[in-house]
């Protein structure tokens, strides 16, 4: 539904742009570095032992428009293939979780509070559509700020817990020692993400620019009825890369 409206909007934009004075087309390529994380760590996370970005390429096309070539202000829309991922190892305490799994024969559910080590790997692929206001003070620099919408088409959110214990039901439940148990929340993830994004580009060649862009998801990556983690998590990623005007 949303995607259809967006495509209509994009088509209208391009159609309008055809009569406009100044259109630019760019190819963007880079890497996403960041985290799918809570904003403000809950106190149940005691220690981050390691963090490693996953291999997360970002590849896209951007169409930008300015009233005239000399105009400072303009607008841009784009379409990007964005991988967003990371691997973290951390230590948690009294961490509330509920794991629900279903197969043909029925549903099984476990709720409890875990204390111990956790390893989480996230690697999600999105098609995202950024929309920006652009500001081009001169030939060298270009700044932009706006929002994005993104559709998840490949989800990975998995990991394991180890070297600890889980309490059945809640912190008052009986303690069960855990050496290692895996989890996979990939299929629970929301398919739609939206947020703010903004960044800057600097010209380094005739058509080539380096860019840095921050995208900050405003929609939790898990639906509100998801109970695997009792706090919302957001996609917060920086894209570092280049753009090439075509």
């Amino acid at each position: 539904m949303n995607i259809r409206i967006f495509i209509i909007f994009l088509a209208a934009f391009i159609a309008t742009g055809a009569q406009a004075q100044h259109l630019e087309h760019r190819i963007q390529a880079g890497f996403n570095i960041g985290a799918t994380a809570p904003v403000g760590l809950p106190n149940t996370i005691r220690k981050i032992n390691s963090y490693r970005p996953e291999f997360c390429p970002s590849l896209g096309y951007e169409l930008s428009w300015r009233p005239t070539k000399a105009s400072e202000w303009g607008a841009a829309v784009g379409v990007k293939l964005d991988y967003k991922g990371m691997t973290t190892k951390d230590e948690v305490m009294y961490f509330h979780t509920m794991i629900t799994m279903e197969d043909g024969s029925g549903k099984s559910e476990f709720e409890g509070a875990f204390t111990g080590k956790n390893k989480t790997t996230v690697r999600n692929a999105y098609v995202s559509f950024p929309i920006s206001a652009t500001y081009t003070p001169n030939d060298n620099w270009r700044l932009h700020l706006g929002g994005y919408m993104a559709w998840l088409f490949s989800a990975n959110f998995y990991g394991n817990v180890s070297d600890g214990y889980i309490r059945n039901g809640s912190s008052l439940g009986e303690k069960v020692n855990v050496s290692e148990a895996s989890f996979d929340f990939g299929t629970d993830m929301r398919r739609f993400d939206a947020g703010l994004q903004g960044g800057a580009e600097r010209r380094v060649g005739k058509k080539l620019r380096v860019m840095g862009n921050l995208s900050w998801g405003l929609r939790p990556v898990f639906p509100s009825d998801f109970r695997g983690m009792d706090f919302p998590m957001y996609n917060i990623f920086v894209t570092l890369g280049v753009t090439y005007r075509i």
Partner: protein
Amino acid sequence: MSATETMLLANGFGPSLLVAGFRFKLPLHSAVMYIMTHIQSIRLLAACALTAIAMQACIKSEPPNPEADIESFTLPDSLLTGEVFIDQSNRKILLYLEPEAFDKGVAPVITTTKGAKVSPASGDSIFFTGGENVYTVTSASGENRKQYTVEVVSIGEWDWAFEKWLIHDKDKYQYVIEEDGGQVWSSGNPGVALSGVPKQPDGYPLRATADSESGTYAAELITLKGTVLSNLVGIKLFAGSLFLGNFDVSSAFLEPLKATQFGQPFTGKATRFTGYYKYAPGASYQDKEGNILPGVTDSCAIYAVLYTGRTRLDATNIHTSDRIIATAKLPDGSGRGHFTRFDIPFTYIPGRSATKEMMMAIVASSSKDGDQYRGAIGSRLVVDSLAIIQ
């Protein structure tokens, strides 16, 4: 607006503000110009963004401990006939006392979760002549309370009709109690509860059945299919089990064979093990990986083991320990359509003799190799009127 400001604006320096006599320029063009002259600024931008992420990733101070366990409950060995067992699933402290200790009361040394408070306090005397002894543990966080009931376990008559059953509050599995409310039998149900089975009595492999040999109820053991969650840890079936002893849920994941703590303190001379059972093996026997093995039929296991000492044997050593002095095993675990009586004499192992401290285990399982997660889903064993004849 002063003339100077007007002039500044006209010169393209951007709007300015007069605050408390100081002039601040809104650095629109100038800031951009400044950044542009510094090539590393793009790095700065990225660094800012990463700092923003890092800043929100600050570790907060540790939450106050919400846990409220009694972790140990220690009495002098001389007062005990069997080791104290803290049943964390049912919040009970099970004591196996010498008669003298029962008459005079005891003063246990108690340890709790760090920071938690217990009442009555560690070292205080408790007596068994009045009402129930209940320990209340309050977590360091103050918000959580847990109550443990002290239960003195003594087996008067070594025969059981399995008439009184209770349902676990939270996980809704059934467990059998003595006529006086005491708890001497256990099962794998508390472990199965961790695997996300439906929280209802028939979601578990051990439950009461009205299909009894005598009285109203008997114990029904059914081998059930594992859950999606238990598959993750390689468990594809749960055999029904019923045994004299306790289930130590803390070992249920790590060392499940050690979770089943077999036996209750026993005195005297055991001569025969008697009871009634019926058994219907499930249709397809499967191995640990869940592969159907054609031509293999499931069988049940019913046995009693008498051993020395007061540390319980478990599924790793109940058949092999050199503390075993006598056994009575159902020789043939094949199907029986109707209640069938068994009367098996204890076989004493030559060279091993009874001591003052002994334990008697009785174990029944709907799949003989259920401890290895092999068996047939649907295998059904019903036992009733079990007895040790002295």
